[in-house]
């Protein structure tokens, strides 16, 4: 169930369209990281199987998935911190671990840097000593160049005055910056990040994401990040790999995985979904309490299917909910009439009416629980933009965005 993803030519167009790093567009022939057929068992349970992917130079990739899916284990296998059970890992074209031939390069020989979830700063060394730790044994000129780089980075990211402090006296954000600089100082070929923001509080996280990304881009290092936070993965990555069900479920650019999910699991990572099950009717539509939804051509009439609708797919018809405008439109005539009234682009030509059960203000959006008119015992989760807080019990109408609705064949 995984896609063999190349970090290469097919990506170029999408990458440029997303406006991300131009470095990705200039792809070299040699991949920085190549993972083939990896599998891992823990305590008799198969954690994942047949995982393969490649990362090109300068790319920032994320492994996104729920806890326990094996993404951290995968990272540790690449770093050499766990013995490889099955498959092959190559860095810069050279195999560093191969289960069949028994090749296994220890972590210190792999030129891989890692930022740990708990930062793992050495408590008995100062900030500067921590960052310089990996530079032992370098030749004179090379060493001086790196020392200069370290001082420049300390200066640029506001750590120069903390360079002689002990890690325990630093704030979480400062510790993370030090951990990152320490990993980058020896110029590794690949940088691994294990849920780097989970120890920080929410406000810090947003700030640090930007800063981290900047530091990594500036150094031109290829990076692979493990996270369970979808927003983080979308914000930072050129390539998002969704991990679950024992393998990589989908890999693509952020736009691809969000707008073209291959299955409900992928969708579920990005927010709450409303699910409606049913059977495709003779006209190729799936009847649901929010309307008869057109199904993709691959689904046959009579087949069981599920509609997964994003909470953000609902758009309030207007801001005066008390008046309860509009009605569910089904016939073509009514659709034309509605269009004449001014239907916003990208929505289905009907409105969903429902009774508001509760409304919660979340800042940039409002989260509502609505009981649809067609099925009052069900509860729809809606996320409306901005402030939209109708009274409990009021009846409202909503447009339904086409790109928020995904129809999949139901399980067999």
């Amino acid at each position, binding site marked *: 169930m995984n896609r063999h993803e190349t970090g290469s030519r097919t990506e170029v167009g999408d990458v440029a369209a997303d406006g991300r790093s131009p470095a990705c567009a200039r792809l070299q022939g040699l991949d920085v990281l190549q993972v083939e057929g990896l599998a891992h068992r823990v305590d008799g349970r198969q954690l994942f199987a047949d995982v393969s992917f490649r990362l090109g130079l300068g790319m920032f990739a994320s492994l996104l998935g729920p806890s326990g899916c094996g993404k951290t284990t995968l990272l540790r296998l690449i770093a050499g911190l766990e013995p490889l059970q099955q498959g092959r890992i190559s860095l810069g074209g050279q195999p560093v671990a191969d289960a069949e031939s028994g090749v296994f390069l220890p*972590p*210190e020989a792999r030129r891989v840097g890692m930022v*740990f979830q*708990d930062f*793992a700063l050495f*408590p008995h060394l100062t900030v500067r000593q921590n960052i310089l730790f990996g530079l032992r044994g370098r030749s004179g000129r090379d060493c001086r160049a790196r020392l200069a780089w370290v001082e420049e980075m300390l200066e640029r990211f506001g750590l120069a005055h903390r360079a002689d402090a002990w890690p325990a006296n630093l704030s979480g954000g400062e510790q993370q910056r030090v951990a990152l600089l*320490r990993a980058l100082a020896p110029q590794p070929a690949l940088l691994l990040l294990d849920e780097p923001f989970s120890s920080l509080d929410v406000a810090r996280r947003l700030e640090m994401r930007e800063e981290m990304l900047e530091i990594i881009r500036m150094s031109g290092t290829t990076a692979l990040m493990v996270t369970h936070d979808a927003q983080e993965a979308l914000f930072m990555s050129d390539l998002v790999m969704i991990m679950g069900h024992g393998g990589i479920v989908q890999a693509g650019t952020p736009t691809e995985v969000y707008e073209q999910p291959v299955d409900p699991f992928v969708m579920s990572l990005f927010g709450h979904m409303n699910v409606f099950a049913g059977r495709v009717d003779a006209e190729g539509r799936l009847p649901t309490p929010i309307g008869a939804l057109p199904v993709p051509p691959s689904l046959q009439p009579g087949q069981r299917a599920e509609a997964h609708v994003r909470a953000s797919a609902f758009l309030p018809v207007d801001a005066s909910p008390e008046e309860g405008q509009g009605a569910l439109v089904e016939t073509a005539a009514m659709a034309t009439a509605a269009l004449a009234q001014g239907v916003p682009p990208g929505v289905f030509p009907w409105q969903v009416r429902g009774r508001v059960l509760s409304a919660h203000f979340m800042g940039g959006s409002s989260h509502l629980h609505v009981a649809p008119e067609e099925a009052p015992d069900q509860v729809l989760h809606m996320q409306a933009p901005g402030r939209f807080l109708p009274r409990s019990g009021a009846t409202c109408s909503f447009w339904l965005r086409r790109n928020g609705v995904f129809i999949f064949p139901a399980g067999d």
Partner: protein
Amino acid sequence: MTASPATEAMAAASAPAGRGGGLRLLRIGALVAAGLVVLPLLAVVVMAASFSDALPHLWRTVMPQLALNTLLLMAGVGISVIMLGCGAAWLVVRYRFPGHGIMQWALALPLAVPGYLVAFIYTDLLEYAGPVQKALRELFGWQGPRDYYFPEIRSLPGAVMVLSLTLYPYVYLLARVAFMAQSASLLEAARLLGRKPWPAFFAVALPVAWPAVAAGTALALMEVLNDFGVVDFFAVPTFTAGIFDVWLNMNDAAGAAQLALVLLVFTLLLILLERMARRRRRFDTAGPRAAGRGWRLRGWKAALALAACLLPVVLGFVLPVAVLLMHAARFWQESLQQGLMEQLFNTLLLASVVSLTAALLALVLAFAARLDGSATVRGAVRLAGIGYAMPGAMLAVGLLMALAWADGLINDAARAWLGMAPGLLLSGTMFALAHGHVSRFLALALGSIESGLARISPSMEAAARTLGARPAEVLRRVHLPMLRGSVLTALLIVFVDSVKELPMTLLLRPFGFSTLATQTYQFASDEMFEEAALGALFIVMAGIIPLILLVRAMNAPSSQSETARF
């Protein structure tokens, strides 16, 4: 604005209560307890200061050699226990190999065997007339001592070896806890930054664990200063041996006091060094991913790891116990004839009295500290805890002098008021012996009870007070029941240490009173060690009890504080 009764009571509960007869009693009790411990120390200082004429003589003749031997012994044992203890702890924490689970607690077994027993046993085995050399001579046809070279066990290196074998568990236990508390990602980060496994250990794992290692080494070195059996048997004159010699053989009280004073200075230096080593690095290395599982070893590497762990256990515990069992099996009747039952009774009686007294005093001290946070009480608690660091011989000398002086006072007063002299009431009695033991072991009871008390949160006290209980009632109804486990532990630990104790008991015991330890020493000195084997086995059995507690504590999830006081 009137505060509700609840908030008033809460305020009263949290403020240090200065009034109340019960509290005053506790305070006095705490001061008395501290006084008991400090008395010998003061006596040593006072006595040594007042006899100034013997000092130059001692300095010229005896002191340099004693000092040198003591320093060499401490250096040798210090290095050995660090290597043995850290190495074993590292293997056991970071790797997995067959037998790994058993080795974790087995490595602490040598603690059960007192150093002097190991000394006797190995001398027995390895001396010229012993079985090993006899076998070698038979095997190779050597006739006499000039025909071959065999290292002399009765020497400074021999003493270093014997003491290291029995004392390395102090470092092992503390280092193990420290390594386990380190986040595994520290070492992984070091490896990903280019260090190979052993350089990574020395650059990261060891420095971060250093405070614990230093504490364990300090404990071991305090035991070295305290030891008499090994150094006497091996003819390695150290300060403690010197005190015995000067006091018992030369009848020189002043000289003994001065040696005791020098020993005190050594001990204080040791404590200072250990505090320094610990204070500079306070590392909070609690990571979300703690130790993790060790790296699995296979093949010859696993065998090597297992052998490395087995060696100290075999040499320090298995072999000595086997020898004891052998001798006991053959000579148990002789042991019984020599008064074993009486010695057993004496030992148990003394240990019971000492442990009960120590537990009671520790409770008084701990409660006083809890209810009254004043500097006086806190000072008293700190002082009371010093006794463990003080070498037994030094405490004995000080105590004897203090009690002799007290006896003199009593006699003078009695003569003045009653017209008669009651004689020696305090010196040379069970009271003196018990006092000495309590002075030394109070710290152990205190450690156990204090850590148990620390687990009772202040809000429990506050809750009880708001429900109407007065301070003394709170102690009785809330704290004491919850402290049952700690009190039991305290009793056991002090009991066992009292059973094993040798130097102080030799000096302080009343005439005709011998314990298992002193009798074993006596027999060994008279080359009749085999007949003491059964008694020695009892000592070892007693020594195993705290180890059982330890194993249970080790297997429980979060009990790091328990292992610190063994």
